[in-house]
């Protein structure tokens, strides 16, 4: 959900959140490993001072420091469900059916996972009409 700093966004209700469609970020680099798990490689956001310091001592002057993050089986499963078409509710439903857990459990797990992906900038949530 995009907004300007002067225009604070109203927190979404649960129904609205469930109707949102998560989309993978175009800027994030990821690959599927042989075991099916997802490996992200992303740049660490550094202040200008630390960027300059890194460039001074790094062999490759243009390359920014990166970090790797590997999802487990469940996380990779959810990541593969994020196709820009399925809503959060669809993902929860598929997760619950596949892993044979209750909808409540699936909602807790998927919501927390999507939140952490969003905080890292790996996904963005869009309303159904956007």
């Amino acid at each position, binding site marked *: 959900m995009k907004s300007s700093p002067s225009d604070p966004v109203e927190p979404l209700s649960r*129904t609205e959140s*469930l109707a949102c469609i998560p989309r993978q970020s175009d800027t994030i680099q990821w690959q599927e490993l042989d075991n099916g798990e997802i490996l992200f490689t992303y740049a660490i956001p550094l202040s200008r001072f630390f960027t300059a310091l890194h460039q001074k001592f790094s062999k490759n002057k243009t390359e920014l420091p990166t970090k790797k993050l590997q999802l487990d*089986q*469940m996380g990779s499963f959810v990541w593969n469900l994020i196709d820009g078409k399925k809503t959060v*509710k669809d993902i*929860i439903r598929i997760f619950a059916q596949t*892993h*044979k*857990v*209750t*909808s*409540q*459990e*699936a*909602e*807790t*797990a998927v919501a*927390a996972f999507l939140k952490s992906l969003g905080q890292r900038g790996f996904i963005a949530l869009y309303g159904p009409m956007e």
Partner: protein
Amino acid sequence: MTSTLNSSWKTIGWNTITLTCPLKWEPIITETSHILFEKNFRPVFELRWQEEKKHGKRSVDATLLKIAGETGLLVQDLLPPHWEKLKKNYSLKLLADNDSRELKAAVLICKECGTTLLLYFFDDLATRHHWDLVRVIESIRCHQQSEAGQVLWAIQDFQILLPNSFTLSGHNFGAGLTRLSFIDSGLTMHLCRLAGASQRLEKSTMLTLMNLLGELEISEEDIQHQDEAISHCSFPSIFQQIRSRVKRRPPFHWVTLRHHPEHDRLSGLFFFDKKPLPDGLITTILDSYEIFSL
């Protein structure tokens, strides 16, 4: 014991209340005396209850009107015919929306045990599906049913029968880990139910999980293996008992963790007490702990 699942209806048991509801309704526990039922992520029915409370000189009718007044809804004087049969067991008032006059809630007081029930209906449950609703309300049991003094706890995909002296002291419904804690005088019991057993057991052993869940340090050679379960019972010497007491830990424990490969679940029971644990009680509780397919 009767099965909690049949073709299209299931039994829910939570904190002295039992009821049957359509299989597609998912109960969500938010408080010890509150269950919200959802269908396809939308609320359909909400139940709050309070055990018998002395209302002073106020009559049951006046109590119903007082509670009804607090909801801000309109009290319906006429009872639809399908609600009439509930009058046998309950004193009740139906409440409607002030504008649309649509049925929104009901307040019931059990004639036998005095428990007050507050029900809210969402969408068109009370009008289009009133037979389902009446069937759900008719199935509500708010007082002890079993002569053996046992209370049914049935939620998610498990059920267990516990003595009615057991009081719920904590509950947590995490993603893949359900934890209920009970106390009965000096005895403490923790019930755990873990989903995704196969994935958990790929990363750790049953013993590691049992030690983690029970905050124990049991070694491999001390545990007993039985079919798909492991268990451990402590027999502390007098010095070990003193040491545990000094550490403010109950010296006696009886713990078990069972794997249900057919349901991909792990179920655990952890008993702790300051005095030796009664064998018969534990066996009865353990025998009643069942896991179902979702």
